[in-house]
């Protein structure tokens, strides 16, 4: 096994988040508000799925596609370690955009927390991923900078999306139940605890909302996710959809 045991729960949680958020983003293929944005958003989705695959490969210690599919798609709901913010459906563009921003702001901090990791594979992957993350975050910020406050409808819809999603943010910083995060920090797998990184995220969200003139309370607790062991209400439907083709013929070779 490439990954030391202390790293595995954290890596699985990050992998599942990247996978689920990427899968949710892909729902916008062909539906983006204009062609260029459609391409950009789907490309970001592809990046996130790419990060998930790279992490699953580290966990499995193989790049075998069937093995990666097995881990990514064929687990029971309770065995996923994704957070609700990543799993959440975003059928309105405002919700998709706000989740993209909240998630990528967090993702950027989480990968930074892996730079210099005592696990060299994580350090190398983080350095590669962060080059893409700078673009993701810039994309989310630029679109929100231009839409927030542009028209009453845009502001109302974005504010409603923030009110819906902000309570899910604390769950993002809930470390996976089956890991010992303090041990992972002590071993240098990650530089800082989820609570510390989550605090930075909170400050960044607060500063940005204040810039946008949005007055919404930030939640310090949301729906209980019990160390990422409880799936959100829409997860089962999404999980079934992701498995739809495999279920037709689980033994098929592609």
């Amino acid at each position, binding site marked *: 096994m490439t990954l030391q045991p202390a790293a595995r729960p954290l890596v699985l949680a990050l992998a599942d988040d990247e996978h689920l958020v990427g899968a949710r983003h892909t729902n916008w293929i062909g539906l983006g508000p204009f062609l260029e944005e459609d391409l950009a958003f789907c490309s970001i989705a592809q990046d996130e799925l790419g990060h998930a695959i790279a992490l699953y490969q580290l966990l499995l210690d193989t790049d075998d596609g069937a093995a990666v599919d097995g881990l990514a798609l064929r687990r029971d709901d309770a065995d996923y370690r994704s957070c609700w913010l990543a799993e959440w459906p975003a059928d309105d563009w405002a919700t998709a955009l706000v989740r993209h921003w909240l998630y990528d702001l967090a993702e950027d901090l989480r990968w930074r927390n892996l730079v210099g990791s005592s696990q060299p594979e994580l350090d190398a992957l983080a350095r590669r991923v962060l080059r893409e993350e700078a673009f993701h975050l810039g994309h989310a910020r630029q679109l929100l900078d*231009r839409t927030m406050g542009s028209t009453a409808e845009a502001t109302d819809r974005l504010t409603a999306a923030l009110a819906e999603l902000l309570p899910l943010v604390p769950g993002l910083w809930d470390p996976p139940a089956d890991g010992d995060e303090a041990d992972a920090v002590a071993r240098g797998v990650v530089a800082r605890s989820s609570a510390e990184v989550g605090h930075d995220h909170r400050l960044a969200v607060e500063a940005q909302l204040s810039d946008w003139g949005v007055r919404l309370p930030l939640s310090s607790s949301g729906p209980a996710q019990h160390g990422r062991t409880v799936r959100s209400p829409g997860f089962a439907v999404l999980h079934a959809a992701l498995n739809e083709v495999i279920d037709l013929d689980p033994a098929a070779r592609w």
Partner: protein
Amino acid sequence: MKTYEVFLKKAGKDEFRHAGALDAPDPDLALLLARECYSRRGEGDELWLVDRTDIVVAAVEDLAPNHDKPHRHNDGARVAARRRATREGTRS
């Protein structure tokens, strides 16, 4: 929204080439979207965006004024023959 014309250049001596166009509200977002729409697969190492309204466009009827004058279309054959004759000392 504005329309921007996209130009890409590979490293080395290749010139900038027109790659297409895109719509964006301003230059910053145009650059961001151009990266996604035109350079995801290493199509270029340098990128220019030109606001379409900044392009000076010639009138079609002013172009190719000499297309019906064959003597303007030198294919080089006569000059090449003259050079060959000089080299071989057979030039009269």
